[in-house]
């Protein structure tokens, strides 16, 4: 509120300055053009000028130095005092963008810290030579893929696994019994992306196939599944990470029937206001939690 009042004062001061400049202009014009003996026009203008000047002095004395908080963006922080009205909102937008990037920066720092805690990032490795052999896994012959799928089918009899190729992209369609469908998009053997859909949302149509679920629960789970895929791929072995991901998916069998380990409830409202079941399965303990209940 105090800042708003200050802003108003600055606006008044600026408009008074503009008036003073205009009056000085007209005073000079009158001095040249007013040929009457009494010079009434000039007198009037000078009286007005004097009044405006004293106003400006008064306003100027009452002004305080601008708070740093509002001039974070350097000189562009003075944009709000621009008398041209079209430019005034620009400052607020700039401030919003600035605070948004600041927040993003802070969140990114937290994310990096968290990742460092759980996995040693590549940059932290003492020996840079232990990089993941990504290239090898990107080009896998179809026969090898078939073998892997057959192996997965044997390892996870509870899951229905289908291997598909749509528009040159290898897909694994994994159905968790009467609960959900997971579409795992592969690049060679490596997990590229995971999509979670309802059991009744599968379609042969390839355009619909790639669309996300129309249910909030499964859209949230898509994010979680991608996080899980990322987590399990840290080991560097793509077959092992695929195995781990499928093992993790099997625990979703009890998504709707089991309560959250922490709050002992089925439903919780998430940050977006959606009422969701416990859709976070801990990557290590494989127990069900709500997103906000998950162990840190």
């Amino acid at each position, binding site marked *: 509120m105090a800042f708003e009042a200050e802003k108003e004062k600055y606006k008044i001061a600026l408009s008074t300055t503009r008036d003073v400049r205009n009056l000085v202009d007209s005073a000079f014009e009158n001095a040249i053009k007013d040929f009457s003996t009494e010079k009434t026009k000039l007198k009037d203008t000078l009286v007005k000028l004097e009044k405006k000047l004293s106003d400006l002095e008064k306003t100027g004395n009452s002004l305080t130095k601008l708070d740093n908080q509002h001039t974070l963006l350097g000189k562009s922080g003075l944009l709000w005092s621009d008398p041209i009205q079209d430019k005034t909102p620009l400052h607020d937008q700039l401030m919003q963008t600035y605070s948004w990037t600041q927040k993003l920066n802070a969140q990114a720092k937290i994310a990096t810290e968290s990742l460092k805690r759980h996995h040693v990032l590549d940059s932290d490795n003492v020996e840079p030579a232990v990089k993941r052999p990504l290239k090898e896994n990107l080009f896998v012959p179809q026969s090898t893929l078939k073998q892997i799928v057959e192996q997965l089918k044997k390892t996870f009899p509870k899951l229905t696994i289908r291997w598909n190729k749509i528009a040159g992209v290898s897909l694994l369609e994994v159905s968790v019994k009467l609960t959900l469908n997971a579409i795992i998009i592969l690049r060679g053997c490596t997990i590229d992306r995971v999509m979670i859909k309802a059991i009744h949302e599968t379609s042969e149509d390839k355009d619909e196939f790639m669309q996300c679920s129309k249910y909030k629960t499964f859209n949230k789970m898509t994010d979680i599944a991608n996080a899980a895929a990322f987590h399990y791929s840290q080991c560097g072995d793509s077959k092992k990470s695929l195995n781990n991901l499928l093992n993790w998916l099997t625990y979703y069998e009890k998504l709707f029937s089991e309560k959250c380990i922490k709050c002992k409830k089925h439903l919780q409202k998430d940050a977006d206001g959606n*009422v969701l079941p416990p859709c976070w399965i801990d990557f290590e303990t494989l127990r069900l939690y709500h997103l906000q209940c998950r162990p840190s």
Partner: protein
Amino acid sequence: MGVTCVYPWPLASGKNGQQVVDILQKNVELAGAHWSNGWCVDCETYQSVTSLGSPPKILHIVHNTEFPLSTFACLENGSCLIADRGFDSVMSKIKGCYEPRKGAKIEAKGQRYELGDFVIKIGQVTVGVSFKGILIEVEYLPCLVASQCWSLLQEFLEGITGIAVTVPSLPSKKSDSKFKPSDTIMQYLEQFNKWKKASTT
């Protein structure tokens, strides 16, 4: 469609049907649900024209605005035929065999709300102009098996109404069978029959 649970809401003493419905609707809106439409489930009962000695057979014809193109024809033994809306005209053609019971048309009507993956319907049940009770229908769309999410639905109902509720028993006998539209209709019929019996006794 997901799994649906139809729950008869008990009338609090000193309040009429409309007042209770208003309170429920307010609670649902406060929970963050948004109004999406009106809804109606109506049921007309037919009985077979009796031949000597044998008791008349009962046939319920049910319509649900959630399935606007279908007619549900249900027998007392629990079997349910789902047909096109044109089935209604078939009934008028066989009025020599089945005739409508007089004053037996019962109807549940009210407002429909959506809250994330849930659909909530609150309505008043009437026979003609006389008020019979209040029904709440809760549907959870992502799930297909009633046994999986029945207690989740109970918790949701308790959450939006603010009081402990005891939901009816599972509609389907098989634990892992998929939930069908006819299961919803059978739940409505069960509640309608209770009210009909209560009014005849």
